[in-house]
């Protein structure tokens, strides 16, 4: 069955586009800093100078090379997203699976906890924490993960409750399988699509948050971020720098998030069997009835 899914995914254009874009950006993010011609903190250059061969995208108001800035920012955003997404996934899956499987008191406790966390707006907490405590970005990523796992765990739990009634799970219980054995071998492998969807969604959210927080100036000023670049570039709108200072980070950010959005949406479409497309002929026939 997962073979068929892989085949469908391979055919889906959105998925391929998104995946290749992600691939591109990921590679860029990883090796970026080595490509950067200068240390982005180096503010010795001529501020606001236009793009030239030496500075592909010019120099910003603080005297830093924009191109280098861009590469470092990209990495920061991508890493933040991946860290938060994976953490949310792991927490969400474990809690969701155990909660759904064990039921009873543990289930009630976890789900109430999830409801409370859902009611708290993530961005507000992040802003408050970032402003008041100024923690490292990794910590913020993890805090975000801690607030976004509930949706994943609810989805996993719902699926687990359904799976609990399936015959192979009951057979495994009859055979004497323990809780961890069943969760590991019978439940978790069945929910693979949910992992992908959840991971994509949370990573997207995290990257979005990172950009927003950076835009609002809540990170350490020394930390390069796409959001921060946009916010600074915007101030100098009256100068003719928009196309080398404002546009690149906007484009980068848009494409990165777009890429992961494509992946998330295509995954949902492919992995949800209910959305399978019928043939054109079928639909035309239906409509002429």
């Amino acid at each position, binding site marked *: 069955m997962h073979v068929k899914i892989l085949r469908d995914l391979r055919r889906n254009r*959105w998925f391929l586009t998104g995946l290749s874009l992600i691939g591109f950006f990921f590679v860029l993010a990883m090796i970026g800093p080595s490509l950067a011609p200068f240390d982005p903190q180096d503010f010795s250059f001529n501020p606001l100078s236009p793009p030239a061969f030496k500075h592909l995208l010019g120099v910003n108001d603080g005297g830093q090379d924009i191109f280098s800035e861009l590469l470092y920012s990209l990495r920061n955003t991508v890493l933040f997203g991946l860290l938060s997404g994976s953490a949310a996934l792991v927490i969400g899956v474990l809690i969701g699976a155990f909660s759904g499987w064990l039921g009873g008191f543990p289930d009630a406790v976890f789900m109430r906890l999830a409801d409370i966390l859902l*009611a*708290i*707006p*993530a*961005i*507000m907490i992040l*802003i*408050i924490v970032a*402003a*008041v405590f*100024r923690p490292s970005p990794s910590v913020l990523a993890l805090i975000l993960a801690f607030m976004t796992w509930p949706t994943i765990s609810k989805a996993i739990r719902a699926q687990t409750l359904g799976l609990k009634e399936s015959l192979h799970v009951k057979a495994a219980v009859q055979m004497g399988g323990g809780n961890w054995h069943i969760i590991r071998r019978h439940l978790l492998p069945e929910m693979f699509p949910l992992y992908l969807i959840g991971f994509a969604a949370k990573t997207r959210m995290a*990257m*979005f948050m990172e*950009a*927003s927080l950076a*835009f*609002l100036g809540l990170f350490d000023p020394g930390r390069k971020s796409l*959001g921060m670049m*946009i916010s600074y570039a*915007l101030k100098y*709108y*009256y100068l003719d720098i*928009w196309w080398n200072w*404002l546009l690149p980070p*906007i484009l980068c*950010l*848009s494409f990165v*998030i*777009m*890429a*992961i*959005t*494509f992946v998330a*949406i295509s995954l*949902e*479409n492919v992995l949800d069997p*209910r*959305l399978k*497309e*019928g*043939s*054109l002929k079928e*639909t*035309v026939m*239906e*409509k002429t*009835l």
Partner: protein
Amino acid sequence: MDAVPRKPKPRWLLGVVSFLAAALVMIYLSYALPRILPGDFVTAAYAGSHVTLTAEQEASLQSLYSQDTGFGSYLLRLVTLDWGYSHAFLAPVSELFLGALPWTLLLLGTANLIAMSAGFVTGVEAAWRHGTRTEKGLIAGATVLEGIPEICTGVVLLFIFALKLQWFPAAGAETAYAEGGLFTRVIDVLHHLALPLCTLILAYLPGNFLLTRNSMMMVMKAPYMVTARAKGVPPRRVRYVHAARNALLPVVTRFGLRLAFMITGALVVERINSYPGLGTLLFNAIQSRDLPVIQAVVLFSSLIVLAVILSMEGLYRMIDPRIRHAR
């Protein structure tokens, strides 16, 4: 089914009661937390910030927070809009709050309504035209748009239409100190509203569209759709009255949630456009460590979330008779 008929307790009463209970808990938390925090809460909060307080200000703040006047009087003060005084903005908190609230409501309410209705209708029509180029095009467009974060759309719109073309103002909800009749004022407000509104609509619409379309796809496969067509129901009625009605639930959920998180939902956009809503207020308050304002906004936000979530239950019942009759 009971032998003896009993008058059933109305469900909505239960909802209201649980809301009040939860609300009370929230309010209590906002009351108790500052008092529970260790050490000198006030000093600690301002440490590391670029804001400094005069001794007098600090003292009054401390007295505000260490007041042991009890929960009851706290409640009373809340209800009478006596929410303290903001030192950063030099105005009573309630004034600041109530000044920003209408703008946020206007912006978010309008954006959500338009995005929801437009998204819903386009979603239904697109699903109906499944397999055609129109549909594919719409989906493609929506997917791309969905992928562009608000920051980008907001900044681009601002940059192009406000800063470069100067068609729209770059800041504010209305022109300050303007004179003029009601009509001029309304136009002015709309003028200022345009950019943030468009940004938000562009951010919310694709999601609603895709969600509706997916919902509709699932509904259209259902057997009762065949029955509807077999009965000779005209297409438009089939689409909306039969199909879309069943696809409504997820969309309404999303609408509700967006509304619930209105303050934070618009925060970035408000900031980009310097729109004086609650988001901007909160942000500025955080920057300047204006605790009373923060407290007020957070509390209000939580209460709204609670209210919306609890009332959505009631809404579900209205929309989906299966839930209504479940118990």
